[in-house]
């Protein structure tokens, strides 16, 4: 299935991709619960990541030819896009490093966490990506109202994820004795979720900025690089969680 261009089929495609992501997440959870095969969980995560990178983050746009000469808006946007993706590549190294830390220090054990809560926040984040995609699609077709509404929902869901992790999951874990300073299990858990939460937080700021600018009429269907950048960044945050969720909640035996 290739990417499409007109609004309604783009929106439909967004729904379909979300459906795939949802099903894969359910499969992931069931696999983890039943026979905990690390390799399959990794494969599922990679598939989810590929779907998000292709259909939501539009990575294929890196390959497109610019319209117009090197002074055109199109050329400059394509240049900006390359810059943004290189930045995300760099950021990915931090998260890869954190995964390495987790594997080295915890091996095939995992912390005792609330699985329902973990699944819930994961779903919330995935749904937020769905709405972000809807919002970006709206703006790409000049629908300012649609964009603002969808981004608002994205923001609320993102905030929900953030509070769900920091205010609920962290407190629950600490109450059960999983603290940052007791041993490495806690240290790794708080560091990974904390670094991710920091990126969610900056993503929320980014979302607010573009929502507000849209309100002021800054963007149009032809010129909305800020929107695309915010969307790609937001999906990246979701992408990281696609790997962090199984790494923290699903892989390995309970300590």
């Amino acid at each position, binding site marked *: 299935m290739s990417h499409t261009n007109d609004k309604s089929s783009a929106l439909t495609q967004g729904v379909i991709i979300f459906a795939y992501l949802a099903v894969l997440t359910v499969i992931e959870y069931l696999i983890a619960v039943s026979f905990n095969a690390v390799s399959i969980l990794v494969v599922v995560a990679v598939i989810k990541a590929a779907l998000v990178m292709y259909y939501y983050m539009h990575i294929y746009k890196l390959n497109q030819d610019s319209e117009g000469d090197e002074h055109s808006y199109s050329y400059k946007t394509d240049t900006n896009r390359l810059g943004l993706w290189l930045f995300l590549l760099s950021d990915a190294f931090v998260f890869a490093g954190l995964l*390495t830390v987790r594997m080295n220090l915890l091996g095939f054990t995992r912390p005792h966490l609330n699985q329902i809560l973990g699944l819930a926040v994961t779903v919330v984040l995935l749904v937020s990506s769905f709405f972000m995609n809807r919002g970006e699609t709206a703006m790409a077709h000049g629908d300012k109202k649609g964009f603002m509404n969808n981004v608002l929902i994205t923001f609320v869901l993102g905030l929900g994820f953030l509070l769900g992790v920091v205010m609920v999951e962290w407190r629950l874990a600490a109450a059960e004795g999983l603290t940052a300073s007791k041993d490495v299990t806690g240290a790794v858990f708080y560091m990974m979720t904390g670094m991710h939460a920091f990126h969610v937080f900056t993503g929320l700021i980014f979302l607010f900025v573009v929502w507000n600018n849209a309100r002021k009429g800054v963007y149009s269907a032809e010129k909305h690089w800020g929107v695309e950048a915010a969307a790609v960044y937001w999906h990246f945050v979701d992408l990281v969680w696609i790997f962090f969720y199984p790494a923290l909640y699903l892989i390995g035996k309970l300590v």
Partner: protein
Amino acid sequence: MKRFFSTALMRGLFWQFVGTLVGAGLVTGIRALMGLSVTDKFFFTEPAWVLGGFFGVLFFLVGNGVTGDWIKWARGIDTPEHHEEHYSGWEKYFNVSLDHKVIGIQYTVTALVLVSLGGLFALIFRTELAQSQLQFLTQDLTLFSQTGPQLYNTLMSLHGMIMIVSILLGIAGVINYVVPLLLGAQDMAFPRLNAFSYWIAVPAAVLLVMSLILGGFDTGWTGYPPLSARAPVGMQMFFLGVFTAGWSSILGGLNVIVTVVRMRAKGMTAMRMPIFVWASIATSLISLTATQLIGLSFQLVMFQRLFGMGFFDPPKGGNPILFQHLFWFYSHPAVYVFVLPGLGVISELLPVFVRKPLFGYRWIAMSSLGIALVGFVVWAHHMYTSGMNEYLRVPFMYSTLLVAIPTGVKFFSWVATLWGGKITTPTPMLFVLGGILSFLLGGLSGPPNATVSTDLHLQDTYWIVGHFHDTIFGGFVFPFFGAIYYWFPKAVGRRMNETLGKIHFWLMTPSFLVLTLLMMRVGLLGMRRRIADYDPALGFDTYHLIMTIMGYLIGISVVIFLYNFFNSIKNGEKAEGNVWNSRSPEWQVPSPMPTHNYDRPFEVIGEPYDYGLANAEYIRFLEPEKSKHK
């Protein structure tokens, strides 16, 4: 004078000071509310200093104005694409400019300042080492709350990191100035990001120096825990400073890659780019990605100290060797970041002074990429004695030895370029040759470190110190000076003094070679590294005395260079044309380089290094741009 204090530099420093107080005050206030201690040895508690340091950087960047346009964009306000210079003369360089040439000079001069500071530290501890037994850095001395031996460790550690930061800034300086010119671009792809990448390095340097006065630290630049987890507060300033400087390197690398991919002149295919551009790409690929790992490794120690998170603390299940893996995953590729640009300068300048094509251009271009790629999989050769898994040692030995192959390709190509040429040796060429010689010694002292069994003897000795000084001087210091002597006329429209340049070279080079050869000698015979004092019974006193004298001679040569550099800006012999008779695009327009680089864009119609081929033009200028500003 008043204008100096209103420059972006001074404004930034002022706001950094304010931000430090705000951050520290915030933490102190919160701690007071929580009933925790609010003061400590250096007035504020460690967490207060850390947040203070962090806020200081943020306040600097907002206060000095470099983030101004981005803040406007966030508020939906558009800014003009084309940026005018608000300042002229010296003021340009102390304020925010979006011009890559100004930024390149800012980077270069800041690098020279840090080189001098790092060199000063080295002279201090080299003076102590000139004779066995402590002379002045004794137990009785107390400076900055440190005894002599503690101060020694701090100065030695800071020497390493300040020099590393100066290298990163130095390569950024040359790359930023030169690459857009080589590509025929008007500026880098992201001029504001470029300015930001420069300006973030300034508060980073301040943090590093602050570590000196906040109790110092005793771990060396590598900051290994558990020692770094229990070092004084200065350790946190060091970590924060490096973390901040890392962002300069990451964002700078990003900018270079995008510029090279998107902003090349018409007709400039990959294989028709000047070779220095290939070197810049290879470097930038590493600095964009691997740098994050030193940031992460330091961040983990910082959090271990602040929150008791036991990543590297064995009683809590932590693993000190994990730190080394994370740290060296960056820090090995980092050394290729240090040397690839300089090796690119050597390749770029040789054809000009030999009047012959660069031998095997494609192979040299690919060798830079090859070194960068292989460089990612050799890191654990720094850890052969660390106690890591035994079975890892042999694979890393193989991968490390493999790096010799693309490196060898460069050496052989350089020799083949020289062979049969028509060689002249003005100062830039002298430094190119000195670089080749030093880098050769550095490279040849590498394989014994690569093979595990010999490394068991060599690790943590002065042999290693000699090895990396040779590679760093050969890959960076010599080519850096060479690049400055070479492109100075392009930037300023005047030449640096040739006689002083030759004195600089002939004073620095033999001294440096003797220094590093003696380092290797005493290392083999048992001289450990990072020690403030050594046993007289080892018989190293004479060697050390000579090494210290060599250090001073190098220092004097650098002073001569600095005088030459600054004096020639106003008083150098005028040089407004193609001083070196180079084929490269930037020399086909007058000097100093016009503000917008090329008034008429050019098209590439031939090969960059076709010296000796009749009627072989490299570029052709096109009709002037219809719209001057984009």
